[in-house]
């Protein structure tokens, strides 16, 4: 950290560089998920029989996970608020709460998948299940990566350091949440 370039102290666009970068990360992620979901939707429209496959997904578990992610987004917002007030330890606590949400989400997902695989719905069962595991898996990987980064941010924030990062991870977390908002109806509700 000792030789931070002068470049990072400038802000010609009127937005802190880190925030700008996170927005660009989000843009590039949107097109990745966009490509995947567009492919899924095109296939889905061409295959009306996928509804039968989708009927075997568990809407209630999906809904529970949606609720978990949404509330974790709320705690991320509160963490940002605490950070902008300069209250690092409080922000850290709220971040840990968010991570708890992520862990819950992944754990529930793990049980859900284990149950589905037990019933014989694996990634090779049909193209619907291939999309189901690929899209949700890619999303889960983002949840896990986000939680790890959030842990790093929280450790620093607890010592009142790098507080601006609380907002950055928050933006990313909202994005991860938003992806799920698209995945949930597409994979669970549309039957």
């Amino acid at each position: 950290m000792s030789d931070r370039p002068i470049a990072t102290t400038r802000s010609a666009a009127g937005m802190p560089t880190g925030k700008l970068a996170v927005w660009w990360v989000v843009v590039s992620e949107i097109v990745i998920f966009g490509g995947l979901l567009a492919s899924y939707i095109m296939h889905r429209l061409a295959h009306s029989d996928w509804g039968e496959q989708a009927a075997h997904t568990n809407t209630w578990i999906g809904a529970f996970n949606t609720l978990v992610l949404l509330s974790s987004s709320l705690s991320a917002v509160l963490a940002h608020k605490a950070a902008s007030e300069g209250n690092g330890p409080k922000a850290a606590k709220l971040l840990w709460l968010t991570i708890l949400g992520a862990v819950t989400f992944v754990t529930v997902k793990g049980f859900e998948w284990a149950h589905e695989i037990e019933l014989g719905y694996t990634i090779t069962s049909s193209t619907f299940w291939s999309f189901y595991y690929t899209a949700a898996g890619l999303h889960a990987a983002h949840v896990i990566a986000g939680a790890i980064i959030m842990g790093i941010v929280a450790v620093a924030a607890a010592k009142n350091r790098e507080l601006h990062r609380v907002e950055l991870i928050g933006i990313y977390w909202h994005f991860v949440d938003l992806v799920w908002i698209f995945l949930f109806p597409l994979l669970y509700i549309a039957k």
Partner: protein
Amino acid sequence: MAESIPATPELAHDEHGHHEQSFASKYLFSTDHKMIAKQYLFTGIAMALIGGFFAYAFRMQLAFPGMDIPFFGVVSPGEYNSLITNHGTIMIFWVAMPIILAAFGNLVIPLMIGCDDMVFPKINRLSYQIFLLSALVLISSFFVEGGGFGGSWVAYPPLSSEPQYNLTPLGSSLWIGAVGLEFVAFLLGGINFITTTMNSRAPGMKMNDIPIVVWMIVIASVLFMASVGPLLAGAIMLLFDQNLGTAFYDPTRGGDPVLWQHLFWFFGHPEVYVVFLPPLGMVADIITTFARKKLFAYRTVLYTVFGTGVLSFTVWAHHQFISGIDPRMANIFTVTTLLISIPIAELMFVYIATLYGGRISLTTPMLWALSFIAEFLIGGVTGIFLGASGADVYFHDTYFVLAHFHYTFFPIAIIGFYMGVTYWFPKMFGKMMSDFWGKVHFWGTIIPFNMIFIPLFVLGTAGQHRRIYDYSHFPELMTPGMQDMRVFATMSLLVMLAFQLVFLINFVNGMIRGPKAEKNPWKANSLEWTTESPPPHGNWPPSEMPTVYRGPYEYSVPGREKDYWPQNEPT
């Protein structure tokens, strides 16, 4: 909210350029953008040598089918497919992208906008390391059982997704894995380019004061970022099809092979502009410098490029006219494709108009920049034949396509590389290259280049289709006249490759023994020429960070003694 949390500025640059660096931290783990640029450059050159060798091997096979080729041996059909596939992949993803976008982007962005480094130096380093890893993965794929992937660089499934069809079970997975890693590397690099240019310009540098080349690299990065996502998703699906037994692209189990074509070309066409725009920007900076002219209609150039960028997302299916898509769709894509010819034509007009009234000195970089325009014009006009759906019915997948493609990509990757290197060599290494040998190399490259590909236009028009290791099974294509043209093209390639030695010697010699370069050898305006050659760590001493007063193209301003006016010179 934005200003509420300062990014700890008190820690900035207290030790800049003073501490001793070990070899590893200077060359292997450097975060200095100039060093990373050189790493990209040399990796790119190394990959270009591999890609060039592949071209040599398969061109020899085409001219003398079955011959025991010196340094290679007999080319089997599988090896031929692998050679052409990896020649294409390497030249686009491991030569054009790292050299044109990453090496020059890293080198010129901080220097030209007047700051000391990229905003995320460590991410920059990580980007190079991922890139290097991807190159190693790709190279390793040539040595696994079954050999390197041979499904062409477009990798259409089911050929690419099913090992029993492509016969390269490991090679194809390593190939798609390497391509995916490479995309991640350039996403990270692209974020750096964009944010650095947006936020860290020198005080006083307005949007209209940014050199065109920086604009172009940033727009190219945005295009890349916005187009690569679907293909990354597609690559994951392809990898799963290859290794987990999913059926995304397998029509017998509910998938669709054409899906990949859409995902690939949705990226593939903007990708052309991703690598095309940076050299186009270099041309703007080089011809203005050596013609001592202001760029003709700076803002028109920008608007045109924005237009091209947006349009480039709407043309992808012109690669798929005869691939079984709904024929009505072809009409839409013919319209958009012909539309995109308009901004490109306008850009060419702007550059030609810039020459009017200039004071043109034909230095080596200027020769390269001018040849870019002359050669790219051929690539551009031949594209019309392919974009017009009715004519594409005949030309699709012939050597006409191949020749057209090389008339766009040779200017992009090879001419772009040489003009950038010869122009910024003093800034990179603090030495000068020989202008005489530079010109020898120029003529020795540009003439054989045309002699390679003009025969291929004729061959394509005569119906010669692509990716064939030996034409003897097609009597119409084995007439003596056609074989003579193939031999002629191969001979020209050998001559062109031989002349690249001139460049390599000139390059290395210039680096070691060239005369010391002054600050501003070309008498150019942009900011990189206001610091030492090569620039110190941090580019300028902290007290002398430049401030910008005008645009970069104020040459031959009436009433001034000197015919150039550096951007940082107070009025």
